[in-house]
């Protein structure tokens, strides 16, 4: 049974009480109500659950698992830790320094730095809501792969000397506030409310665009544009994404509009990855802790990874 059936019922009831069934307007309004309700419900439940789990696995604790090992397994673990770590870029530098100072290898730290803003629960819920589970699964796998491979490549380059001199000190074990179950639930609840209150306009705009296109743009309109994808579309999308800075929620309306306009799925996913994982403001912040050359190496490695992923998807998802 479809868990969203009650929402569909609600959307039908709201829509067809006002509009005549079968009209374009009714269909667009119905789609809008159902999809917004579905995405908000998913966002609330998933962010709450992930935040609750996170209270048991703060990065201050997980870094101990990663210290001193540059095995493939530590890269995989770093990428996964990146998924549950909050996607606020304000933590990028303290997380980076916290890892490096604790003796986590540079490559493993980069894996984390790439995966954290790119693959997170908010991005996944929005992708699922707008494109379905297949695209979401592909995005997760591709995002983790880009993060793991980029980290492995940078680790191989032995570029530790390009870090700004960081006082390597004995890392103090954090005295994290002890949390009772009530406090964990409180934290998860507040975190969820905070994120939902920040991302809701993007959700409404994203779904609204989708609903409008769903109802009003004829199918053959898309077909005429779907053929316009050129070989340079993917690298162009990735380059365009670097100066643009946004979190995953902000870029989703744009991504859904581009896709509906007939831009290939691989190209739009590459665009989304580039916007979230590579950003000029983040480079500026990272400049405090590493030489420009290392930032260029970082951007080039991750950028090439994303371009490859974009081509791969365009080739895989030929529809």
């Amino acid at each position, binding site marked *: 049974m479809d868990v969203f059936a009650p929402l569909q019922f609600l959307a039908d009831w709201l829509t067809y009480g006002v509009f005549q069934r079968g009209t374009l307007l009714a269909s667009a309004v119905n789609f809008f109500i159902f999809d917004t309700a579905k995405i908000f419900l998913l966002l609330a439940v998933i962010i709450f659950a992930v935040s609750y789990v996170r209270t048991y696995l*703060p*990065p*201050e604790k997980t*870094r101990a698992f990663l210290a001193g090992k540059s095995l493939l397994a530590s890269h995989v673990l770093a990428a996964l830790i990146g998924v549950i770590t*909050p996607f*606020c*870029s*304000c*933590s*990028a*530098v*303290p*997380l980076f*320094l*916290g*890892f490096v*100072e604790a003796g986590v290898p540079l490559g493993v730290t980069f894996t984390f730095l790439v995966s954290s803003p790119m693959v997170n629960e908010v991005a996944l819920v929005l992708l699922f809501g707008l494109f379905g589970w297949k695209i979401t699964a592909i995005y997760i796998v591709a995002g983790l792969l880009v993060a793991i491979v980029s980290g492995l490549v940078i680790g191989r380059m032995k570029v530790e000397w390009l870090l700004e001199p960081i006082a390597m000190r004995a*890392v*103090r*074990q*954090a*005295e*994290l*506030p002890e949390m009772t179950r009530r406090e964990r639930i*409180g*934290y998860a609840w*507040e*975190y969820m*409310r*905070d994120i939902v209150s920040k991302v809701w306009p993007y959700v409404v705009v994203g779904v609204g665009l989708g609903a409008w296109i769903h109802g009003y743009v004829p199918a053959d309109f898309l077909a005429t544009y779907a053929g316009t994808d050129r070989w340079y579309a993917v690298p162009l999308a990735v380059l365009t994404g670097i100066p643009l800075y946004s979190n995953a929620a902000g870029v989703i309306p744009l991504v859904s509009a581009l896709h509906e306009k007939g831009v290939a799925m691989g190209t739009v996913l590459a665009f989304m990855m580039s916007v979230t994982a590579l950003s000029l403001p983040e480079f500026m*912040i990272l400049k405090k802790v590493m030489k420009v050359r290392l930032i260029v190496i970082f951007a080039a490695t991750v950028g090439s990874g994303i371009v490859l992923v974009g081509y791969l998807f365009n080739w895989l998802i030929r529809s």
Partner: protein
Amino acid sequence: MNIQVLGSGCPTCKRLYEATQKIADELGLGKVDYETDIQKLLDLGLMQSPVLAIDGIPVAVGNVPSPARIKELLIVGSGK
């Protein structure tokens, strides 16, 4: 009592600082110290931003608690 907000200077950190200062004013607890030097945060062994610390002990890490929760933390910390 020393109330500190530590962060990387990002908008979220500023929001926590402003919320905390407002509540500290209400409770008559004086100035909140706003620290944007990341090294200070790392010195506490922490990696997430922002942090609310009372007398050097972190009481909220990596999020902006609700005003009610901040108030609770400040009251407990001040021993009032």
